């Protein structure tokens, strides 16, 4: 058996001999925050990446992004945590949430994408909010197109610094440098809507378009 002269060689040696059964601690994916949807958690290896900005893209009306949003609110409330919801179009469905869940959200009812981003900036700078959701999906395409890329860079730095999990709902890929980007789609059939939220969630389809964090973890594993 060859000898390992240093820790790097030892890692290589272990990887060669035992393969995937040996998973080094520093090569694991970062801590994840469950989304409340098992299928999405499975896709993201646990949930939304912590300390990063994730993007949920739902193209067109009826994509299912609202279902994901409410599922995360419910999951957050179940965990005894709280969530800041920056609602760019003031469109949160209060009737669909229970009073105990509503008591655990801070809802910012913005009037535009610009106002929502400024509110999100304040929330991300405040270290009190571990989870921030920014819903930009109903905003006009023109307004979203005017958002500078530096804003996402700043949000990314803030989330990394404060350990915040931020999720942005958009109608098309918008967040540059997102920790992960998930596309959601659904068939908003009235039967499913009528059957309740669980049925509506089952109809959602997710596609992991970009996973910066997972890629970084993979890179580290390869390097290790």
């Amino acid at each position, binding site marked *: 058996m060859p000898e390992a002269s240093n820790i790097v060689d030892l890692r290589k040696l272990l990887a060669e001999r035992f393969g995937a059964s040996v998973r080094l601690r520093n090569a694991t994916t970062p801590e994840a925050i469950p989304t409340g949807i098992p299928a999405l958690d499975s896709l993201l290896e646990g949930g939304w990446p912590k300390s990063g900005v994730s993007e949920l893209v739902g193209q067109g*009306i009826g994509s*299912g992004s609202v279902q994901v949003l409410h599922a995360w609110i419910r999951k957050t409330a*179940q965990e005894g945590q709280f969530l800041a919801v920056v609602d760019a179009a003031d469109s949160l*469905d209060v*009737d669909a949430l229970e009073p105990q869940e509503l*008591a655990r959200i801070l809802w910012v009812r913005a009037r535009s994408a610009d106002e929502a981003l400024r*509110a999100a900036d304040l929330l991300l700078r405040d*270290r*009190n909010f571990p989870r921030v959701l920014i819903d930009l999906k109903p905003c006009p395409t023109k307004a979203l197109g005017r958002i500078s890329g530096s804003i996402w860079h700043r949000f990314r730095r803030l989330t990394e610094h404060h350990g915040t999990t931020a999720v942005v709902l958009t109608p098309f890929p918008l967040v540059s440098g997102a920790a992960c980007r998930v596309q959601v789609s659904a068939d908003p059939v009235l039967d499913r809507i009528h059957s309740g939220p669980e049925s509506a969630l089952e109809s959602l389809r997710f596609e992991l378009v970009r996973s910066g964090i997972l890629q970084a973890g993979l890179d580290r594993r390869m390097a290790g």
Partner: protein
Amino acid sequence: MKEPMAMTPLFAVLHLLEFPLQSALRHHPELWDQPIALVDPTQRVARVIAATPGARAAGVVEGLMTPQALARCRELLIRPRSVDGESSTMEAIVQVAFGFSPAIEDTAPGLLTLDLRGLPGLLEQSQRHGWAERLKGAMDALGLRSRVGVGPTPNVARLAALWSEEVFVVDDATGFVSTLPIAALEPTAHVAEILGQWGVRTVGEFLALGRADLADRLGLEALALFASASTTSVRPVRQIRPPQRFEEFWEFDPAVETLEPLLFLCRRFTDSFAQRLEALGLAAEHLILRLRLESGQDHRKRLRLPEPARRSEALFQCLQTYLETLRTEAPVVGVDLSLESTRSRQRQFSLFEAAVRDAHQFQETLARLSALVGGDRVGSPVREDSHRTDAFRLVSPDFENAPTVESRPGRWLQAPTPMRRLRPPSPARVEIRVLGGSSSTSITASDPASRLSPDHVLALLSPTFRKEGGKPMTVTAPGPPVSRIPETGPNSASQSPQPVFVSSAVASGRIRRVQGPVRRSGHWWEAQAWAEEVWQVETDRGQVLSLVCREGCWTVDAVAD
């Protein structure tokens, strides 16, 4: 191990030089570099009672009348003496000094005597010096120039504070007193002149003459001077309790119109409060701000801190956030700031529950969000006790006391499927098919003329609908069949007419499936009576909408998204 305590008599005296002037300039120490004279406005003839070094350099001394002082120094600023301000300053000094000794005597304006007997860590000379340095540092932080003397008797400590360096700890009391000038005993002018003629310059020379001989020649005053020079007699200290009142105020001259000077002053106020609260072991619960305006009006605001605090930053942030959003009608000529104190609280968070890490920061962020989007658009939603769709209000978030959520299976089954709400609802044109008939009716919400009364709508929706009252309604040809999802709720009306086509800014198309209607009403006994009929429909383009009919007007209230 128990710390050794100073059991031998030990006293300290804190002396604030030119106390009225210091009190007047406390919050603006940079004014000491300017020629400023203090006058007493209560006197019939305004005379200078104190002056800054700059004014003295120009020849302004105590006793000059204001015109005389101005004649000597053209740039001289005249400031009125404020008895209230001196009282407030003295309160601040007592409160801070209480953190150094519990036995304090308010000996004279600007002069405090502290009994140090029983205090730990004052056995060594160096320890006493360090203690005195800390006391002086605390006064510096209040913006006050002070001298501290420590000695075995109150009298020796007072002489040390008055006649020596900024901080002086008397080791050899007899030797120290002997070297003092005779003026330290404060003799009358007549006795001082006699002693001067005798060639007596120091206290030591005076004491060497002998008590009995001096009494024979100078009378009773000699005995009083001997008592003043005593290094052994210890008088009792008249202890006072520190007031639990926290007030600071300032008059602007001229009035200010911008935020910066106000914030600058507020920062000084909160620094002072923080220091005083710390000394007393208290915390601020409310801040009471009063701005005196040039128009003669007052602007008052009572600011509640998110949790009791004594940190200057926390107090200042609370003020800053409020002042940044404030617009007054007139310039500000004065500001008063006071606080209500309470005992500081300690708490332990639940192991798994999340809590706000920094309540002050949280409150600050909430205030900034309110300034950004409006106070009525930030908070935690609470559903109103109503069956009306989308009836809620926002309250200030209280995450620490938020109820826990059960994670029982099937909990969601009772919850409605979330949709994306449209606020305000989007006006819609909806075609309704009347069951049992061969026609459908179109009502356009955007047309004011088509607004119908609730009774009219019910009549419209009833199978026996007839056109009445000359209202503009369009009868269109029947469309393809629309499937209906059976209703199970108590408010269902499965036999009602149903929408067959919708046109709105959000979505348009022929309706292929409907669910509803759900009829709700409330407050029918009041003027704010309301009634609505809610349909969930699916268009031929696959969009699921929530259509609501209120007072004959159709709107799209929500879309499945």
